[in-house]
């Protein structure tokens, strides 16, 4: 009996991994997704073409990839573009996006909320307000129910 009570390593086993009924999401080839093009976005920001930068940064979202670095890099780029907008231009920026664009923007905004910092919270909240009036609560519901997100 004393032999059995020595090790408690069994308590650290994740039993859910061994459940044969465990739901596994479908694998969709995401290895080619590299996220938005950093060089292109940077040059557009430097030129002052913020609308173009917004469109460019929302291209190629790293949704299916499992590479966390790609996702972090994409998020950083998006935040850079969002912070470089003037408050008065945010609404125009949101209007220039189509439905899928607004959904994607909302996904990035919520990703940004996950890591609040001094600089980005205020900016993100302003973008959130404008995106909400464009996409409605349905847009937020889609962020919450998305299985694969940025």
């Amino acid at each position, binding site marked *: 009996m004393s032999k059995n009570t020595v090790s408690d390593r069994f308590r650290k086993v994740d039993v859910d991994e061994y459940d044969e*009924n465990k*739901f596994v999401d479908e694998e969709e080839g995401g290895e080619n997704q590299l996220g938005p093009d950093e060089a292109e976005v940077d040059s557009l920001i430097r030129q002052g073409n913020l609308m173009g930068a917004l469109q460019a940064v929302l291209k190629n979202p790293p949704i299916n990839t499992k590479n966390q670095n790609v996702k972090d890099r994409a998020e950083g780029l998006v935040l850079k573009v969002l912070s470089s907008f003037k408050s008065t231009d945010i609404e125009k920026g949101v209007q220039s996006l189509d*439905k899928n664009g607004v*959904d994607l923007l909302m996904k990035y905004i919520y990703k940004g909320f996950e890591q609040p910092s001094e600089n980005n919270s205020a900016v993100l909240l302003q973008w959130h307000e404008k995106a909400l009036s464009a*996409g*409605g*609560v*349905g*847009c937020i*519901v*889609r962020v919450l*129910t*998305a*299985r694969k997100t940025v």
Partner: protein
Amino acid sequence: MSYHSFLLEPISCHAWNKDRTQIALCPNNHEVHIYKKDGNNWSKIHVLKEHNGQVTGIDWAPESNRIVTCGTDRNAYVWTLKGDVWKPTLVILRINRAARCVKWSPKENKFAVGSGSRLISVCYFEQDNDWWVCKHIKKPIRSTILCLDWHPNNVLLAAGSCDFKCRIFSAYIKEVEEKPAPTAWGSKMPFGEVMFESTGTSGWVHGVCFSDSGNRVAWASHDSTVAVAEGGKTAVCASLTSETLPLLCVTFITENSLVAAGHDCYPVLFVYDSNKAALSFGGKLDVPKQSAQKGMTARERFQNLDKKATTDSKEAVLESVHKNSISQISILNGGKAQCAKFCTTGMDGGMAIWDVKSLESAMKDLKIV
């Protein structure tokens, strides 16, 4: 349009009899109450007590006048009216989780039960043993089945599930019927065959509905989208993302128009254009109450600012007829081809009957094609 508040508790599910004079509903407990319409009032005439768990699905077969109920106690009962009393017959579903939804087939010789056991039980009556027997459809369902609808050919069954997919299965039971003719969804239909599986929408599928011809199927999903698929060599799918909260139930009212309702507490119209394979928003179907616009006194404004921290003068009262989510919608008159009236019940314990003609005239720009 009329609204009747039955109870304070949510109405879990409801079903109408053939001539729409009686409604069977579950008041969020283990019982089924049957109300009869007399004049403008509803009186409770029967209480069906047999389930040990909340009744999650009720369906009333119009021709044979039988009610089937299913509940969280993993059982289903078929009720037949003997004289003035409803007598239950237990149906063993062989499931180990709660049953979630039940539907009689169009010919009323079978019914299907969706459950949390990740399978659909298709039950039929075996004359020799005088007993209801069931067959299971298991593959490739990965999670709870939330909603079911039968195709008019009595064989195909659409099922919406928590594994984010809407599928059409064949529920062909050779003991009770002939081999079915080919349909838009395929020609070989052995039991359990998947004729169609949806892709593209994510989110639990809360409501599913076949159109009157059976060539189209619509489903409402938890990511605030509605989608329609049309059968053919390759099924054509059209989906629409909406700006509102998720919809819980959907039904066709003509071959091209759908009405759906959900957490936003009002029914919504969608129109499907098969030439463009596109779904579009048709309009909000609620009749707004004509509320008098009261001006706010300065005192009220400061009070609002103090109590609610808002300068908004809108009252915090829902303007829709239903005061809580609508969970089920059913067609009363006209069938799915030319619906004239439909009924909604919800979490506010109320039932509203909507008249399509008067809605069309009340809302400008509303066209039901």
